[in-house]
């Protein structure tokens, strides 16, 4: 690692070489009481106004400084400049990193130290309501791309010294900073240790989003053991239950570990409404999950292999509709499902001005023309539409559901209801065998805890009961020894 040279010319040359062909590199040469100096920064990352007001003006207006380079540097540090974020550096590599993080760096001739000042001034988005986690009654602010602002949002809601933010970094080239956030004395020390060790082993060169880190934090499986939230209130609630949050610079989503399967069905609105309504909504979401995962598979299985399961009148209606289409039920459902996924993807990726057109054309073509042309039957269309809508009731599970649906569809076609049942057992086995940082993914359902299940899974208890006893994540049944 290269050290800062005593010679200003050498340091200048080094930095100029490093930022060769970079038009954002700025250097301002100055003379301070007869000693040559230079201030470096990267345009766009710093606030020029702050540099002028808090660095250049005080330096220019400073009295005559005594001694050589090092003495002058010490004088400047102690008597001239009073930046809040100010540090000395001797390593060139660190200086480069600071420059790229929005610091200004002052170097003096004859001095082997550099003085860096935090003068960040890049544009950033203000807190807005998260688009992917819409709440009816919750707060309307969401995380932004700056992890420091995100830290402040959490701190503002949890005014306790137990709340810790430990700094870490990922990405060999991007040097993306992140903060590991937890409540000391509540979060399991073993989980914190595991988080740090897994992040350390992260072999990414560039981490452009929190999602990049997920695969380094989890151990695979159909359902993830790492949660994500764009809402500071949700993250605070999770931290209070012993979870560890990871705030990554440049991404408005915060990672949460350990993350249990039942949490996919929990939203902040559940806790802001009356318990009976919260419980009702919870059960609606469970139903929606099963509907979304199993309905196409069961529809294909029953219509193809077990029509005796259906009431006669319904069976006749389906048979009548199917008789007018050229494809078997399986091909029809599969076709509709793929069409739906294509439409969804197109709606997501198309420019905003075109997305309405895509929806209308898609809805008309698929919904009306395909049925009236006799290409697909109305019952199949209804099943796929129901499945899609149900999937949006549990948006966190959309990705696994998209694939599970397809798997159950194939199983139902080849092995009937039994194929779907076998798929269900396999799914259960996968869920039962998965863990998130030593906590079983399906807890408190399997392993079972009656107290916890009727607290916040099958029923959403009232706040008087919820407030009585904490449900710290590492105390869930079946968790490996995750004590303090």
């Amino acid at each position, binding site marked *: 690692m290269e050290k800062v040279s005593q010679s200003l010319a050498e340091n200048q040359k080094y930095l100029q070489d490093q930022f060769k062909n970079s038009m954002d590199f700025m250097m301002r040469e100055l003379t301070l009481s007869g000693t040559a100096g230079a201030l470096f920064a990267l345009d766009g990352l710093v606030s020029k106004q702050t540099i002028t007001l808090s660095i250049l003006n005080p330096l220019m207006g400073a009295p005559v400084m005594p001694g050589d380079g090092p003495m002058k540097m010490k004088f400047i540090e102690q008597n001239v400049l009073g930046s809040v974020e100010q540090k000395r550096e001797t390593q060139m590599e660190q200086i480069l990193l600071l420059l790229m993080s929005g610091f200004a760096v002052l170097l003096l001739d004859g001095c082997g130290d550099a003085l860096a000042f935090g003068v960040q001034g890049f544009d950033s988005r203000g807190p807005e309501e998260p688009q992917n986690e819409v709440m009816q009654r919750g707060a309307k602010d969401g995380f932004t791309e700056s992890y420091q602002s995100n830290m402040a949002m959490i701190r503002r809601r949890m005014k306790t010294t137990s709340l810790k933010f430990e700094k870490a970094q990922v990405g060999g080239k991007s040097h993306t900073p992140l903060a590991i956030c937890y409540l000391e004395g509540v979060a399991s020390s073993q989980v914190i240790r595991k988080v740090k060790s897994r992040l350390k082993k992260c072999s990414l060169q560039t981490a452009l989003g929190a999602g990049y880190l997920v695969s380094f934090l989890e151990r695979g499986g159909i359902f993830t053991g790492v949660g994500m939230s764009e809402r500071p209130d949700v993250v605070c609630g999770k931290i209070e239950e012993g979870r560890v949050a990871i705030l990554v610079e440049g991404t408005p989503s915060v990672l949460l570990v350990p993350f249990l399967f039942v949490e996919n069905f929990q939203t902040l609105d559940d806790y802001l409404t009356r318990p009976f309504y919260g419980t009702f909504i919870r059960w609606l979401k469970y139903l929606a999950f099963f509907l979304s995962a199993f309905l196409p598979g069961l529809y294909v299985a029953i219509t193809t*292999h077990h029509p005796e399961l*259906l009431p006669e009148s319904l069976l006749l209606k389906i048979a009548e509709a199917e008789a007018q289409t050229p494809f078997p039920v399986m091909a029809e459902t599969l076709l509709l499902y793929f069409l739906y996924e294509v439409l969804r993807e197109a709606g997501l990726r198309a420019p905003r001005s075109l997305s309405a057109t895509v929806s209308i054309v898609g809805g008309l073509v698929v919904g009306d023309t395909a049925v009236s042309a006799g290409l697909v039957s109305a019952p199949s269309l209804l099943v796929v539409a129901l499945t899609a809508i149900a999937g949006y009731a549990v948006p966190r599970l959309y990705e696994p559901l998209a694939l599970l649906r397809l798997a159950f569809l194939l199983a139902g076609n080849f092995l009937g209801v*039994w194929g*779907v049942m076998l798929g269900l057992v396999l799914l*259960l086995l996968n869920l039962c*065998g998965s863990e998130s940082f030593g906590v079983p993914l399906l807890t408190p359902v399997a392993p079972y805890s009656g107290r916890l299940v009727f607290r916040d899974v099958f029923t959403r208890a009232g706040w008087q009961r919820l407030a009585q006893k904490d449900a710290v994540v590492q105390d869930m049944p079946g968790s490996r020894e995750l004590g303090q």
Partner: protein
Amino acid sequence: MAKRKISAAQFFISMFVSRVVVTIALNGRYTGGENMLESIVSYVLAMGLGFLIALPIWGLQKRRPQWDVARAAVEDMGALGKPVPLLYFLYFVVVNGTSLALFQLFLMDTINPAFSAALVTTALVGAALYGALRGIETVARCAACVFVLLLLGCGLVFGIVAWRFSAENLEPLFYNGFHQTYEGVLLFIARTSVFADMAMLLPMVKGRKGLGFACWAGGTALFVGLLLFLVAGCLGRYAYTQNFPVYALAAITQVRSMQRLDAVFTGVWMMGLVVKLAFDMYGCRLCLAALKSSPDDSRGGAWAAALLILAVALCTALLPPVRAVLLDTRLLCICTVAAGFLLPLLVLVSGLFRKKTKAPEDGA
């Protein structure tokens, strides 16, 4: 790596699921008579005998709580004990192969689906193998979920068919002597792999195992009693003419919106079978580990067991001579008593004998 343990509740719930799976496949041909009510008496007697059969296993558990019977045999008896894990492995293969064969026979003879029954059987073994490879905790947790689904499924079927119950269908007990009761006891013991499961898996169970066993025996007796009572009361003599009377009971079930619930019955059977097979395949892992004197359970054991179980199931279902041998109640009963009583007793006695012969040497 530290081995994980499961709770006594999880273990005996899994055993309950296994028991239900076996009971579903019950028919008059094997119970030795036409009166289903007598089978209830047989089951209660079989459970009473079960307590006696399990005694050596409890004795061995008390002496060597950390070892299963196969490992205790290898450790205590040396080379002479090596056949014990092998015998348990073979027992698991045969018992599960026959359970699977009964399911395939059911598919082939009663359901006759448009697709190959062997394909379903293979998929079932694949699912069980996946569970066995994930470990005993995974299977035990899954068994608890299947248990709930099973209770819901059975509750639905029982609740709906109960109105068809007619006391006129019930026949007096022991009208034709005690032969059927005796045959029933043999059958219920023969088709109970819980003793072998206990012999191999009890060291991985924590909690009140004795209470768990008593609850298991009582719970299964209640379930089997209720099931057979409904079969007898709803189907009467018609049950005897059916290869799978419990299925026949499910097939006559009608709800307003669902015409028949036999698919639910078959699904429940399949899910239970996966749990039973997975548990016993995990037992096979332990058997091979004991044979190799390896501290870790052998994944190869589960693979070998899966392939052999599939082969036995297909042979039993497709080849009548093999079926005649492997589904023979007396032969299976001898195997079960050997696995549940004789082998543990042998290992227990040899362990005690070894301790006695070693004691003077230690003293000297």
